[in-house]
């Protein structure tokens, strides 16, 4: 019986570990939130920014927001959960990047280029949408 190819194993591993890491962070964040409730002090800049934009105060809109909230003592529980969400969103992109590298290592230049092109298009659409 034929099994998965080396590339399929690499991508599967990336998706599995990305998913597990994300879930661990999300459950950890939710557990801390359930134990301690809302943070006693939130990042004033983020709260003001969110209120001006008509968003909920606990929403994060950038990685620097998440990093700042994680740097507080104790760390913001929702920032831990958000870090898990960010890891989850990055997981498929990491899978495509690893697929490109794996195809290249296997000598399959055609699919290494196709995977790299998909990655480039993804980043381009993200950049375009972000600038819109």
């Amino acid at each position, binding site marked *: 019986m034929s099994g998965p190819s080396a590339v399929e194993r690499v991508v599967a591993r990336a998706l599995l570990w990305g998913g597990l890491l994300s879930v661990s962070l999300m459950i950890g964040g939710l557990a801390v939130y359930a134990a301690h409730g809302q943070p006693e002090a939130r990042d004033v800049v983020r709260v003001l920014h969110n209120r001006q934009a008509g968003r909920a105060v606990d929403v994060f809109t950038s990685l620097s927001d998440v990093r700042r909230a994680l740097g507080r003592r104790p760390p913001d529980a929702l920032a831990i959960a958000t870090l898990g969400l960010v890891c989850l969103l990055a997981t498929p992109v990491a899978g495509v990047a690893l697929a490109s590298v794996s195809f290249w290592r296997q000598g399959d230049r055609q699919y290494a280029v196709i995977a790299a092109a998909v990655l480039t298009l993804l980043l381009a*659409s993200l950049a375009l949408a972000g600038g819109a």
Partner: protein
Amino acid sequence: MSPLAFVAALFATSLVAGVAGAVLGLGGGILLIPVLTLFYGVDLRYAMGASIVSVIATSSGAAAAYLRSSLSNVRIGLFLALATVSGALVGAGLAGIVPVRALQLLLGGALGYSAFATLRQLRVELPESTEADPLALRFGLEGTYYDAPLDREVKYRATRVRRGFAAMFGAGVLSGLLGIGSGAFKVLAMDYFMRLPMKVSTATSNFMIGVTSAATAGVYFARGDIHPLLATPVAVGVLAGAALGTRLMARLRNTTVRKAFLPVLAYLAGAMILRGLGIVLP
């Protein structure tokens, strides 16, 4: 509803969405958005943010297992992702230029026809072997998987690759124009146009939806539409559901998956035609 009960209810709903998404190759938004907005009173923007998270969670949860069992085909997924992602870029550029309602009517009609075509091949377990497509040979769009209900290895090769690629590009344009997920279109293009086994189509769609939704998800995050208290239980529930869905899929026949897919297709066709007529379903 207490916060804990709300989180538990969200988790349970997302678990069901994850199972359905993993089997049908969809992101789960078709189920999650109406439930979140109608039953839980969640703001539409946060429901859509949670939905895009659920797409990627379904993909990560299901595709890992499908890749290991060779049901998901990385080469076909990446080859077609070229069409959907570039189509989405074109669609985003056309927003505001193309008459969206006319497009929705056209798309609804095409989906309705596809539902009819799917109905006709409802009892087809595996597509008949067809003439080799030069593009399929050139790009290695073929594979083998072990089918437990049939108790044998199934070899397959894509056909009518140009049509499948064009359909994927069209699905990408619509995603970019209308901001919709396109899991159903991906399954349709692989099952109907490229004549891949239904289970390979939904499993490969599972791999693709995560890839093509990643850019959109980044935009939702930057816009502040992904609320951690809502998206976290959804993501965890969907991941768990997707893991269950992959186990269920291993026991299903291709015809069963197609039968489950048909009502989704019919619903999408109806919803798209109604949107084109100016009536928006939740």
